[in-house]
């Protein structure tokens, strides 16, 4: 199956399932970014891929480098507020993606 390009996806889950430590059964539509960014690579990335494999080691360099753009949020949805299971209000910033990009 051909890997899909970088795009916005969504999953409905409870606030507790977010793993941020809040205990609340309220649900949230979590939007996140996933997929391939191969089409957005540059000569830089091809060179980094080659250097990471051999070039850096030959020159005694241990730098870790990224060899391709990542599928990341380019904008987040507005803050999300909810009542936890002890009826206290909380607001979480920048947890759900609005747009994705490489």
């Amino acid at each position, binding site marked *: 199956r051909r890997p899909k390009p970088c795009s916005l996806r969504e999953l409905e889950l409870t606030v507790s399932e977010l793993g941020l430590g809040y205990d609340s059964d309220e649900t949230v539509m979590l939007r996140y970014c996933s997929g391939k960014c*191969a089409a957005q690579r540059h000569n830089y990335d091809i060179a980094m891929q080659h250097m990471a494999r051999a070039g850096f080691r030959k020159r005694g360099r241990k730098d870790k480098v990224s060899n391709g753009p990542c599928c990341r949020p380019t904008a987040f949805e507005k803050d999300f507020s909810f009542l936890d299971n002890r009826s206290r209000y909380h607001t979480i910033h920048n947890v759900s993606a609005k747009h994705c990009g490489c």
Partner: protein
Amino acid sequence: FPQNEYTETVHVGQPAGTAVLQLHAVLNSSAERPHFYLCWGSSFRRLVYSSWFHLDVLTGVLSLNKSLEESDFALLNQHSWSVKKLHLQAVALSNFSRKAPCVPRVSARITLDFVNATLPQCAQTDLKELCFPHRDTSNPHIMENRFPGPIRQLRRLTRTNVCPNYTVSYNVESETPVPFAVNGSTAELVVTARLDREESERYRLLLVCTVRTETLITKMETSLDVFVNDEDDNAPYVNGTDTADVIISFNRTKGGTFGSVSVFDRDLTPIYPIDQSHNKYVGTLLSSDPWVKDTFDIKSTFSETTAAHGGIRETVRDYQLVLKRNLWVTENRSVQLDFLVNDTTYPGLEATVLLHFNVTVLPVDIRFANVTHGFSLSRRASDYAQVGRVCVENCQQLDGVRVTYRLEVPDRNASADAQACHAAISVAQAPDEMWALLYVNDSGALLRPECQDLQYVVVVREEHAQLEASAHVHVRLEGEAHRAAQESQQFPSCALNRRRGECEPVRGLGATTGRCQWRQGVEKGISEDYSTCSPDLRTCPDSFCDAVESKDVSICPQDCTKETVTGGHERGLRNGIQAGYGTCYCYSEKCFCEKEDVEEVMCDDVC
């Protein structure tokens, strides 16, 4: 002047009246008398040394007007303490004149090295110095057909009194007889006859100087090349035929050139300066027929050749018929064109040559060589798969003819289903191509059982005369039909795939067999034989973005992409990838070429 540069040396301490050098002028006739003047170029009047010299009007001898002192040397603001250069200009007029302005290209330039030292005594003087001036690099150039006479003073005038008891004499030698001699009394080199450039362009002379002292005879020799300038004294002539027979048939495009007739001229034709009036040719098309005037022109190109005998340079002009417009396929005529070539600068009578072009314009039939064209096609072929090529007869030679192709169903009142089947194949033609490509327009129709063998009529139409011709096209479908109705699918681009394993199992846009095809490159560096996944290796990649491929860049981005390619590559001349490193693959128009020997690392493993 036979030479436009004169050089000599003058020394501190030389007295007034010392002769420095002698100018000469070549005469047009025996009646002419040259008058020599130092000419007052606008910058000359300000030169401090302008008054130090005198030029004898009749003899052309330049002499010192005053004795040269060390103070004179110091006056010159050139930063050199040993030798300074004095620049004078002179003109030769055919009569007396009070004030002679310098006329460019006609005046002679005199360059004197003014040495800050006295002239060496006889004992310190090298004998060669008595004979020849210092490094005289200006070779005489004499216009042909001029009146014989002296062209150069061989004696070194500034040294005549250095060794009074030596006798210096000159003579001239050459391997072959030459029209040159030395005047024993004046020691001038004399041209003894009118020269003819078409006879000899250059004379290689050997100047022999003999110095007799009491005890010794010394001979000094040096070569001198005398060049002969050209004058338009030869009429144009045709060597062989003055007629060209031209048949115009398939190639009838504007700008096309046909036939060739050569006109020779023993004179030279300077390519530069263009407006030079030497050997200037004018051509006239002698025809009042408007059709001829609208349709034809004569173009000439000239080149310099060397004549068989003597290797003398001469000119040859090639005259060709040129089409001023595209000829229509129906035009069918014969006509004789006369073209008058005139050497306008040749004074003689026979300055013209008449050339003839017997032109036959044949009509062109627009027809197909074969009445039927048979093709086979896999039922699994994808959209834009190429079926084959159709072309009118002689289409490779046809030029200047505009034709368009279309596909028709043979039976006009065929059923809807039959019509739907025939939508499977369509035709495409590139703007400047004479042929057309048949390609799959609806792959879904190919799979339907009711779509058996597809029969078409291909019609070609010539744009201007609206001539049409047709032929039968039979496409035999191979492979299994599918019971279920098939909607046309969305095919991805084969070029997306980066390995054989990904490429060969999948369908792709333009895949003739239904599957993409993998090409494995073998070379190490950047190579035209790069690895890639293609819909049809016969047409992609072939560095040519054809009429079907240009319908959708995803068909063959390797040939058609206009975007920057990432990775080691060389661009095609118009677009596409000419050569690539390792494997070339493309996301729509964005292409990459890189070594493919490692599993792609996801970016976050690294972040």
